[in-house]
């Protein structure tokens, strides 16, 4: 039976599809969603990536004082040299600040990643890999990190890289006068020294097993000693040189012929185009772009069906956290916090907001990405809206009403929309206030609101989330949680050199947060990417947890 509207639609389908008959796409898509949301099966590829991460982690955190050596260094130089061809075109949102001390968005970091080098890098599986530091060593007490620099790195202006540049780069990030928001990353750093031109030593005040991740931070690129003018002069040691930067339009890069990793990059150049994600996807489909790494999930699902594209998803530690302030009613009542957890169906939220592409969250910022630390059995209250309603009534809040503040970006509004619906079943009224993201974070309003959704980007270690937002003295303690026991656990997790002790601490933290935390974290973002098949990626098409860190040095035009 078919209404007139259905006929009109049929025509519209046909029209849009240029009149070709085809299998209705949405059915495929629905099937896919069903798979993702109903079964928790871990895909093969995902399984592999998880175990790789575990292996890398094991390698890295060996307490033995031997040098860690990355395996992929061996690949370098073995490949036969071929002429560099092609310009790989990548779609990004517009860049604003190109000063490493301030850069934050994917596109800005992508720019830095192309122009500069990190001392050490992270892999897609959260392992630390060498870059300008060809090797490094952690002292017995865990307070000294010694990095050996590659000998043949040169800046784009020809000056060879020395330890002095590394010192300058890190000291600049630590300098209060510069005012980098990353300054606190290095609070624990006592001093940096350079025993010789190719050796850098970081000395910590106290033990900090995750300190290596601070070295891999997005901002921690190595700049030329003395450089200050980062918005107009782009001199790094990286694989690409900036040929031309056209604000709010594009950046043209050319391959750095003198790159110290000889043979890289394979492409003759790279182009970053700054456009919004819809336009970027259309450009990708139309062959105007080669790679798009960040996009709405629905667009990604649709792209998976495009025969011209290769797609990839990886889990990350990035997530959206719904959080309630605990220093005021009703958030100060544990029953309320529990009731809210009970009123929330996380799977459904994941299915709606992430189309099942995300990995499930358990109300703590530690997800499956951190395979060692993740506790899949933390005691979450079961989904029970009626129970939640009863519990609220018991707590004296039978008609709870919240103003929920939500940045207007990503899947956060979708999250909010579903929460509104779910909580309504428990008798809770939610008024959604979508706020412009720049305003929301810019004015620090996000720290003040009672109920808000905060997006947290991917980080290589769970410790940062805990230090910043869940310690009573955390810089961004948005929920105003003040639990001495939790604080102690966080400190222990962040400082202990005993691996087992750390794992135990992380699991204890997860348990606490699941039972009585101020957060609801229903999912961890996937990182997604799509590239045209004209480009081949050595080692497969991969995307970093923070997509901006993805390098395209090993992309080759077919």
């Amino acid at each position: 039976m078919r209404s007139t509207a259905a006929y009109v639609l049929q025509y519209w389908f046909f029209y849009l599809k240029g009149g070709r008959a085809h299998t209705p796409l949405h059915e495929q898509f629905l099937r896919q969603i069903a798979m993702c949301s109903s079964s928790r099966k871990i895909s093969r590829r995902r399984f592999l990536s998880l175990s790789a991460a575990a292996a890398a982690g094991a390698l890295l955190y060996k307490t033995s004082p031997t040098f860690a050596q990355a395996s992929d260094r061996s690949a370098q130089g073995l490949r036969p040299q071929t002429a560099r061809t092609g310009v790989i075109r990548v779609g990004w949102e517009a860049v604003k600040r190109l000063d490493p001390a301030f850069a934050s968005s994917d596109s800005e970091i992508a720019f830095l990643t192309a122009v500069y080098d990190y001392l050490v890098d992270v892999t897609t599986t959260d392992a630390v890999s060498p870059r300008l530091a060809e090797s490094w060593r952690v002292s017995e007490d865990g307070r000294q990190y010694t990095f050996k620099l590659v000998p043949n790195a040169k800046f784009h202006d020809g000056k060879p890289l020395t330890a002095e540049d590394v010192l300058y780069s890190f000291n600049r990030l630590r300098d209060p006068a510069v005012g980098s928001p990353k300054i606190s990353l290095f609070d624990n750093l006592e001093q940096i020294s350079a025993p010789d031109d190719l050796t850098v030593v970081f000395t910590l005040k106290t033990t900090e097993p995750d300190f290596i991740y601070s070295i891999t931070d997005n901002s921690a690129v190595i700049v030329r000693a003395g450089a200050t003018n980062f918005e107009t002069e782009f001199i790094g040691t990286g694989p690409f040189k900036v040929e031309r930067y056209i604000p709010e339009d594009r950046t043209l890069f050319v391959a750095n012929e003198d790159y110290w990793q000889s043979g890289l990059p394979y492409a003759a150049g790279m182009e970053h185009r700054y456009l919004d994600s819809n336009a970027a996807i259309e450009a990708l489909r139309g062959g105007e772009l080669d790679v798009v790494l960040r996009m709405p999930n629905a667009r990604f699902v649709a792209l998976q069906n495009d025969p011209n594209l290769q797609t990839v998803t990886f889990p990350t530690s990035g997530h959206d956290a719904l959080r309630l302030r605990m220093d005021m009613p009703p958030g100060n009542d544990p029953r309320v916090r529990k009731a809210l957890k009970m009123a929330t169906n996380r799977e459904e939220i994941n299915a709606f907001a992430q189309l099942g592409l995300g990995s499930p969250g358990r109300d703590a910022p530690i997800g499956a990405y951190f395979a060692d630390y993740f506790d899949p059995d933390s005691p979450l209250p079961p989904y029970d809206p009626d129970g939640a309603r009863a519990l609220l009534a018991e707590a004296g809040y039978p008609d709870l009403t919240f103003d929920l503040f939500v940045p207007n970006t990503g899947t956060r509004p979708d999250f909010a929309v579903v929460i509104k619906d779910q909580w309504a079943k428990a008798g809770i009224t939610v008024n959604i206030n979508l706020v412009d993201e720049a305003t929301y974070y810019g004015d620090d309003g996000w720290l003040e609101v009672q109920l808000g959704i905060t997006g947290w980007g991917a980080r290589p270690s769970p410790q940062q989330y805990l230090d910043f937002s869940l310690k009573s003295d955390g810089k961004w303690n948005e929920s105003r949680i003040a639990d001495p026991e939790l604080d102690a656990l966080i400190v222990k997790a962040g400082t202990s050199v005993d691996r087992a002790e750390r794992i135990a601490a992380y699991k204890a933290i997860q348990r606490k947060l699941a039972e009585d935390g101020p957060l609801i974290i229903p999912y961890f973002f996937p990182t997604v990417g799509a590239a045209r098949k004209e480009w081949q990626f050595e080692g497969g098409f991969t995307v970093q947890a923070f997509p901006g860190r993805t390098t395209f040095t090993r992309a080759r035009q077919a």
Partner: protein
Amino acid sequence: MRATARQRQTQPLQIVRLSMARRGRLLRRLWHDAPLSSIGALGVIGFLLLALIGPYLTPYNPTANSLSERNQPPSLAHPFGTDNFGRDILSRIIYGGRNIFALTGSATLIAVGLGLVIGLYVGYLGGWLDQIVMRLADALLALPSLLLTLVLLGALGNSRFTVLVAIVILYVPIVTRVVRSVVLDVKTKAYIEAAEIGGESRFHILFREIMPAVLPTLAVEGALRFSYAIFLVASLGFLGLGVARPEPDWGLMVSEARDWYALSPHILFFPSAAIVVLVVCVNLMADGLRRLLEYSEAD
């Protein structure tokens, strides 16, 4: 000589208060001469009725999500299908229509009302005040409407109220200009002078003697403004400004559906079609209004 091109003199349309029979005759004539205009007017009334009583007819909550029913193509249960949250698109369009009429309609009404009063006063009084107000109006009109709205949205915050204020600020100068041009014409008419020498108060002259002559033109202008406002709000919604999610706003629905059209084109189609149909209907209605006024003028 003030007949610059842009200041197109709007002739006052001589609609005369009519007896019911004459009104009926004119409507029949309109139906006969311009059935499309009549259909447009009926369409607008239809949309209005739908917005008023539609919510009582639809069984769905426009913001209620349903995982099991997402992205369904049109069916009997969901004539326009469901969107990516499993929300009934027809319901959302109906509620969105409410938004259109409530926000856009009231903004247009306020702008038309303010423009009417300002236009009456400056047109009738003339002089310095008139010059200043008209220069100011020129300046506002020189701002491309969407840019002005964006700046205002930035300045006053992104809320429905701001959209309302923006539309009012945008349209008051335009309406003022139109009203003023009619007033300039009417105020030289002998009956206005007769009222003046009859010792009538300014209020009486403005609102009892002049205003009726302005109203017909204003009705046409108001209808056009309304259709432009629908466009503007839709464009804002599309740019992610104005009405916030999950409110059912047509422009917002189009914008959101952009992620989905490859998978479920109907999510994009229906709100787009709703915008197009309503705007076309409003334009047709404005055309019909103009014709009616011409008739009564010629009659």
